[in-house]
């Protein structure tokens, strides 16, 4: 089980209407990318609290994200060397590292981390079937898009994602154990990992298609129904206000 896998719970986040949750997630992901240090710090503390409430064990989640941290490090480095404001701290060849660069690097990597953690809370507290239903509801008024098929694809993709991440981790460890890391040829390294991963995934997809057919799957199903409560409206207002504050402060 990865931190992105849905887990049953009794928290407010679990009980919210998935359509409201999607709107809230969209608001957060837009505003966080504009947030300054102090508002981001306050929001991160609130997010950590939310993670605990939905049952995410923070140290375990961080352990699962070690590849992601490598990417964050690259984002940090790229942003650090691209910004030249402030005092110069040191120089490596033509690359100049400044206080302004470090500040921007930390802020950018932190914003990315916060967006990712908000997404983690969403996927941890929302059943794939609920995401599917909400997506169908949002896509219904859009012309030329078969909303039911698109919704089924979203539901399937959300189910496949943690499985793929888990399989990738297992394959990576298995390759390391066999000395695969010592291979220098990059094409072979990518091919070995990707073929192993995709073969496993295709087998899972085949089994899923068979299981769906066996259960009489049809796109012509009853539309999902939603019953929003006051709690949904309260959370939406709270998130909207937070998003505005993150955007303007």
């Amino acid at each position, binding site marked *: 089980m990865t931190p992105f896998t849905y887990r049953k719970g009794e928290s407010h986040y679990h009980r919210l209407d998935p359509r409201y949750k999607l709107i809230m*997630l969209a608001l957060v992901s*837009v505003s966080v990318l504009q947030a300054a240090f102090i508002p981001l710090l306050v929001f991160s503390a609130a997010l950590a609290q939310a993670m605990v409430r939905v049952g995410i064990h923070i140290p375990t989640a961080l352990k699962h994200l070690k590849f992601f941290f490598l990417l964050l490090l690259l984002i940090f480095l790229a942003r650090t060397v691209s910004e030249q404001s402030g005092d110069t701290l040191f120089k490596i060849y033509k690359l100049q590292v400044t206080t302004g660069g470090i500040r921007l690097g930390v802020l950018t990597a932190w914003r990315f981390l916060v967006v990712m953690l908000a997404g983690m809370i969403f996927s941890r507290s929302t059943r794939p079937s609920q995401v599917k239903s909400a997506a169908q509801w949002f896509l219904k008024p859009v012309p030329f898009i078969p909303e039911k098929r698109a919704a089924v694809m979203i539901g399937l993709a959300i189910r496949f994602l943690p499985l*793929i*991440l888990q399989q990738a981790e297992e394959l990576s460890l298995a390759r390391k154990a066999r000395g695969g890391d010592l291979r220098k040829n990059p094409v072979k390294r*990518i*091919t070995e990992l990707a073929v192993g*991963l995709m073969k496993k995934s295709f087998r899972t997809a085949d089994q899923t298609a068979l299981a769906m057919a066996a259960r009489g799957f049809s796109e012509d199903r009853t539309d999902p129904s939603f019953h929003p409560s006051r709690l949904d409206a309260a959370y939406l207002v709270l998130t909207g206000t937070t998003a505005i504050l993150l955007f303007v402060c």
Partner: protein
Amino acid sequence: MNFMNQLRMMTYASLFVALIAAGAFISIPVGPVPIVLQNMFVLLAGLLLGPRWGLASVFIYLLLGTFGLPVFAGGTGGIGRILGPTGGYLIGYLPCVYATGLIARKNKRSRLVDISAMITGSVILYAAGVPWLKFATGMGWEKAFMAGMYPFLPGNAVKIVAAAFIAGKLRPLMKG
């Protein structure tokens, strides 16, 4: 296309949505810089699913990201990323996967055709991404190419060659 085939293609397309999203988190260290597999999975979606289902899988992927799920590179999501400086690359995935799928489907299957299809797809991707980056950030053409294309070309070349081998190994599996 009969019902079962259509169901299988829909499941494969959903699988590719997940693979493209997971590609943002799966990195392979090659030298000092890790290679992220996201755009390789986009190209593979075109090769293995064809233009129509490839387009569908990229569309669903972009939709998930627009909703705010952390599926874009760097584990981010949200409409802000689509409208931001790198949005051109994300939108460019749509014509990229379609062109790759179309060229691979219309021609006789060979590794050379696959590689040509992916090169065309990549050219389309940069043709969408670099101008968008230029206009979104206000940088000049030279800087836009320096920041948004040149550093990624060697990694892209490696991924295209690897994807051609991967497609060759996986096609027989997809025929069931």
